[in-house]
């Protein structure tokens, strides 16, 4: 696996401790914006102060556990990548259902089922290689990026009582500008810490501009210094009515994680070509287990943070040691409520600037992945509709919540899961009458290279193959066609249209072109004729042709299919 050039410390690298500490603080600064979700949840569900502290601490502890489990990759659990978890408000609706029918404990029973559902879907995704294609992965990553950017803009434009819109804009510019400056025009440590430096500039500027409200400092002063969370302190019970919403929530959490984990794979491999679904399975499994543990600690559901993955990649450190240090920092903060509160002091416009910075890397990465393959009209529609639904998530959610308040709330979990789910469903639907194995006959006298190009590009689009592989196949196939015809290897029959039948096969790794004809097997040779052979031996040209085919394809095979000869040209995708 070759590291991309922008990565200074890869997954297996161990940066110096001082660097790790600052990078962990940087990650925590970003993830800090999601720390507000636990107190929001506590307020929303009417928890008392003890219960609120339990919830907040438990969620943080579980996050720390989760980031280690994800990266350590023990016994087939965890992807091995740096992919932290974050709390999400999208599960509020489902949890509220559980609480309404069976009390607070039932919420955490639902989180247990969510975790189990994620583990189930981890195995299901791995088996659906034909559905979870490169393009679907690219769509998921693109939607993560667009969602981050959209959320960033919302934060910047959110009205705050003590801040004017101009001040918010200025803060955002200062934060984003600092991050851009250090990321583009510096390297080494300054680039590694570009996000942190931007956040620091944002914090200092907001303090200088007297924007941080007094109430934030009051909250900080009033927060206890130490709190020890107790498992199941709030409660745990199982409500059968929340089973289906929990399974649906688990599905959409898994879809969201699919996108984040694919992004992590791509950011760590310069030669990335397709999603490693085994690694995705292991990653989603670890998240399911994390949510199981989380439910017993009485924390709220967690999902992969595409933003944290982007932050690591954009600043150049995706080391698993960063995960360990981040987990340690999260564990420390989990016991110190004052430390939790301090992260929430950062103004929203500062976080908004950071999100725009991160979103750029992720969104473009997703676009690159989607554009790396040939696309036919089926894929265009599946991906296009998925993308449009994904970016229309908020207006759709607002409309459908009024019409179908209980049902569609679960379907509209997040833009990533809505868009990805739609694209997956359409991809499955469009498999109907998808003639990927369509055979075509080429007349030996009247066919041309253009005919082969048209056919193979159409097949390539249906299969979603890489364009460079299809172009290589076009050239080699036509060479093979000419060699068979020009060297008398086809049995020419008078008064008959002599044909070569060509069809294609595609699996995850190879694009195969199969030529069927009546005649003689093409002699393949692994040795090129010599200069003397060319000048003195009439068979040298045929030998050269066979050698040319042998070299143009990644693998060549010949054989018989009944009375017909077959020539297999296999190209690595």
């Amino acid at each position, binding site marked *: 696996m070759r590291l991309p050039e922008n990565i200074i410390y890869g997954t297996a690298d161990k940066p110096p401790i001082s660097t790790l500490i600052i990078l962990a603080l940087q990650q925590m600064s970003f993830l800090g914006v999601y720390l507000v979700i636990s107190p929001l949840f506590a307020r929303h569900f009417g928890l008392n102060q003890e219960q609120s502290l339990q919830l907040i601490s438990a969620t943080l502890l579980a996050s720390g556990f989760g980031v280690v489990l994800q990266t350590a990759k023990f016994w087939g659990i965890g992807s091995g990548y740096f992919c932290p978890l974050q709390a999400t408000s999208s599960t509020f609706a489902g949890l509220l259902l559980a609480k309404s029918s069976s009390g607070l404990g039932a919420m955490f029973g639902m989180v247990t089922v969510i975790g189990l559902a994620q583990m189930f879907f981890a195995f299901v995704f791995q088996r659906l290689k034909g559905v979870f294609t490169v393009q679907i992965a690219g769509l998921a990553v693109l939607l993560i990026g667009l969602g981050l950017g959209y959320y960033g803009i919302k934060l910047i434009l959110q009205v705050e009582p003590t801040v004017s819109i101009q001040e918010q804009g200025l803060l955002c510019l200062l934060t984003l500008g600092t991050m851009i400056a250090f990321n583009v025009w510096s390297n080494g440590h300054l680039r590694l810490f570009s996000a942190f430096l931007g956040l620091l500039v944002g914090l200092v500027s907001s303090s200088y501009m007297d924007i941080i409200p007094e109430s934030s400092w009051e909250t900080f002063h009033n927060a206890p210094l130490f709190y020890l969370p107790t498992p199941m302190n709030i409660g745990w019970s199982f409500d059968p009515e929340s089973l289906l919403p929990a399974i649906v929530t688990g599905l959409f959490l898994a879809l969201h994680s699919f996108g984040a984990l694919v992004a992590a794979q791509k950011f760590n491999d310069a030669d990335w070509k397709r999603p490693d679904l085994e690694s995705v399975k292991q990653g989603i499994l670890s998240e399911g287990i994390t949510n199981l543990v989380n439910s017993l600690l009485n924390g709220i559901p967690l999902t992969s943070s595409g933003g944290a993955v982007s932050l690591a990649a954009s600043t150049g450190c995706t080391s698993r040691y960063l995960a360990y240090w981040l987990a340690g920092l999260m564990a420390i903060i989990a016991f110190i409520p004052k430390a939790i509160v301090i992260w929430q002091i950062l103004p929203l416009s500062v976080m908004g600037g950071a999100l725009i910075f991160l979103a750029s890397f992720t969104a473009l990465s997703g676009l690159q992945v989607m554009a790396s393959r040939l696309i036919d009209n089926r894929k265009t529609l599946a991906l296009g509709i998925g993308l449009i639904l994904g970016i229309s998530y908020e207006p759709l959610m607002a409309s459908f919540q009024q019409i179908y308040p209980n049902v569609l709330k679960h379907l509209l979990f997040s833009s990533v899961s809505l868009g990805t789910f739609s694209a997956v469903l359409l991809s499955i639907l469009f498999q109907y009458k998808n003639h990927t194995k369509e055979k075509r006959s080429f007349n030996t006298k009247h066919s041309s*290279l253009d005919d082969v190009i048209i056919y193979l590009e159409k097949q390539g689009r249906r299969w979603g193959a890489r364009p460079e592989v299809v172009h290589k196949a076009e050239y080699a196939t*036509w*060479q093979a066609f000419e*060699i068979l015809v*020009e060297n008398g290897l086809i049995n020419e029959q008078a008064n008959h249209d002599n044909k070569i039948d060509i069809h294609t096969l595609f699996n995850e790794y190879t694009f195969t072109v199969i030529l069927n004809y009546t005649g003689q097997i093409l002699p393949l040779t692994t040795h*090129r004729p010599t200069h003397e052979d060319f000048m003195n031996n009439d068979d040298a*040209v045929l030998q050269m042709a066979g*050698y040319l085919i042998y*070299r143009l394809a990644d693998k060549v095979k010949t054989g018989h299919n009944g009375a017909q000869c077959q020539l297999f040209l296999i190209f690595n995708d």
Partner: protein
Amino acid sequence: MLTITTEQKDAYLILVLTGRVDASNAKTLEEETIKLINDGNKQIIINLTEVNYVSSAALRVFLLIAKELTKVSGTVKLCGLSSTLKDVFDISGFSKLFQITATVEEAL
């Protein structure tokens, strides 16, 4: 689709090919070149700058041209090969059979 034009530069006849050289037009190229050789042209430069595709049929014709010119103590050079064509010539071993230059001027 192949177009063949010729120009004379000093003692060299420059054969400028445009388009694709494959089985459908290799015979035409062969016949026209043999005719030019029979007309007394012994120093030939084949300019492939505007050629985007050659097949094994084309390679066979180039080999035939080389053999014909050897019989009359002539020479053939190739120039202006794109990277794709260069790969084909390298794989087939034809880059060792011919003197290949980047431009016509280098071949002169």
